[in-house]
């Protein structure tokens, strides 16, 4: 069996055994949900409800004002307690709709499915996806409707369904593929119809052989290719996945559209199917709760807006001395300062563990491991020095804006230099300076 993969990258310990075999179980909706109006890449949604309003499950409570945005829906039925700033996993408080749950899950009337989704036009599929507020569920939370709408001059020939789940510890995508294979594949077909592509490729890493075998054995009514990939991080990063599967390179600063590809995460594919076939907006998602700080690691279906604390309590609570709470995977996840933050559309996992005092940082000794591992072909240590000594122009010409912050460099750095933090700092400084200049 030929296993495909990309150049460079790393293979950190997977730690997936905690939850690999745990079935996805639904988490009961909590008494109160906190639904931020900004859970996606792009502009925040505008509130449609006010304090005291009654809302139904799946009712739209935030409307996307522009193209690059996504609508937000209520994940319970009940009464709006407030529309105000509230803690958010991305750090800064965000306008949040707090709804008290009446426990009845009364469905909003607009959640209507379609009997034969495959007969829908591309236009209709896009409209339904947009209406359902679907964003990329891999973590970046890019509005899915935008991805389904390739520019006129760029023909899309391939839809890639990203089943890599290359982040260690996370297993939610694995479980989705195992438990809802039809939903995923049918969702992929809808994506294919919407983008006008000819074929679907599902990329699966070889640490999920059970999924691979299961999907290989099925018959498909449309052109689906199941492709096995060598387990490596960051295979799930769009550009690397395209390189691994198709040997095509997305040009610098470009999008997968430029090489005729659309990439969707398996969870997103399922959400597309749910939205189009069942009229279900994106008000819950699958996530992995794991790490040595969690008493009973699990895979859960969680309503958007559920506080982390409620999720963790369901998994037996925090172990004592846990001092690190991460939203997302261990390679790219964000640390949280409080467990009061709500689950959002981009929450692929909640990881908790404890850590000792960090090891001492040394000067860069030029071992070049970061260079050897960078999946984008950058020279992270050089970039770090440019940022450290304020040579932003040099950093830019050396390609810092191509950095995807995957963390491969920092993972492999024997001097324990916080390379990603430096690079993020540099990218942000350069981008904000550019913005200032163009303004």
């Amino acid at each position, binding site marked *: 069996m030929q296993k495909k993969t990309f150049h460079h990258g790393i293979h950190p310990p997977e730690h997936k055994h905690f939850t690999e075999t745990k079935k996805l179980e639904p988490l009961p909706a909590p008494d109160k949900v906190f639904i931020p109006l900004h859970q996606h890449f792009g502009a925040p949604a505008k509130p449609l409800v006010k304090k005291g309003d009654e809302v139904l499950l799946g009712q739209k409570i935030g409307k996307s004002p522009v193209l690059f945005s996504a609508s937000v829906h209520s994940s319970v039925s009940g009464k709006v307690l407030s529309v105000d700033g509230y803690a958010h996993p991305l750090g800064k408080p965000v306008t949040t709709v707090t709804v008290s749950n009446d426990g009845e899950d009364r469905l909003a009337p607009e959640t209507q499915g379609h009997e034969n989704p495959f007969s829908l036009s591309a236009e209709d599929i896009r409209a339904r996806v947009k209406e359902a507020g679907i964003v990329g569920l891999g973590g970046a939370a890019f509005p899915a409707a935008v991805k389904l709408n390739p520019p006129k001059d760029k023909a899309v020939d391939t839809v890639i369904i990203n089943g890599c789940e290359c982040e260690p510890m996370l297993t939610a995508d694995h479980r989705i593929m195992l438990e809802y294979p039809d939903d995923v594949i049918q969702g992929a077909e809808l994506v294919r119809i919407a983008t006008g592509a000819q074929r679907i490729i599902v990329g699966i890493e070889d640490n999920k052989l059970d999924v691979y075998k299961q999907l290989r054995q099925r018959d498909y009514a449309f052109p689906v290719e199941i492709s096995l990939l060598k387990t490596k991080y960051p295979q799930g990063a769009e550009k690397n996945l395209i390189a691994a599967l198709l040997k095509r390179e997305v040009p610098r600063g470009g999008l997968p559209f430029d090489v005729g590809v659309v990439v969707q995460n398996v969870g997103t594919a399922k959400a597309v199917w749910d939205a189009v076939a069942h009229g279900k907006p994106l008000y819950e998602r699958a996530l992995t709760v794991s790490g040595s700080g969690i008493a009973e690691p699990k895979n859960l279906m969680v309503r958007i807006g559920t506080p982390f604390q409620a999720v963790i309590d369901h998994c037996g609570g925090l172990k004592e001395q846990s001092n690190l709470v991460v939203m997302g995977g261990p390679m790219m996840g964000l640390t949280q300062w409080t467990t009061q933050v709500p689950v959002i559309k981009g929450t692929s996992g909640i990881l908790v563990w404890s850590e000792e005092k960090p090891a001492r940082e040394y000067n860069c000794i030029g071992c070049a491991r970061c260079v050897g591992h960078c999946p984008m072909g950058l020279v992270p240590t050089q970039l770090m020095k440019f940022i450290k*000594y304020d040579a932003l122009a040099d950093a830019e010409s050396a390609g810092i804006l191509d950095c995807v912050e995957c963390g491969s460099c920092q993972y492999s750095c024997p001097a324990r230099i916080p390379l990603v933090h430096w690079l993020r700092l540099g990218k942000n400084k350069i981008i904000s300076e550019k913005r200032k200049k163009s303004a």
Partner: protein
Amino acid sequence: MNLLMMFVAAIFVQNYVLYYFLGICPFLGVSKKIDSAVSMGMAVTFVMTITAVVSWMINHWILIPYKLDYLQIVAFILVIASLVQLVEMFIRKISPPLYQALGIYLPLITTNCAIMGLALLASLKNFSFLETVIYGTGSGLGFTLAIVLMAGIREQLDLADVPEPLKGAGIALIVAGIMALAFTGFSGMIN
């Protein structure tokens, strides 16, 4: 072969900067960025080659026949001053950014001892015309090599934690010293 050897020797073995200590001012002053170092090196190489030619002609056609060799210093410096001024005007015309980058060092090529040194050494060593030209170009390239390498190192040292008092000229001189050590490897290769 002899000419080739001479050429190589002028670049590596008897490098103007690292062996004769000529042209230290621009070597320290214009070696902060690789780009300007390359331009400076090119300008110097150009001026050196022409100086070699013109000074040879003046020396062999005017000064020596008329036994005026005590006028060497004055005559050479005149040649150099005029040439440099020409080059300066030229660069200013064709590339203002380059002119800005080389800044005050362009006029300083006049007082760049490498160029005066070339004229004097070439006459001291009694080179033939062709030898003088080769020697001039080689020496210029040797200077360029030294200054470009130095600029590369200094760009890297800008990103290093060099002790405060040594920053700038201090560390540059120490680097030059170690470079001179490394270049001793070539000694004895060409006599």
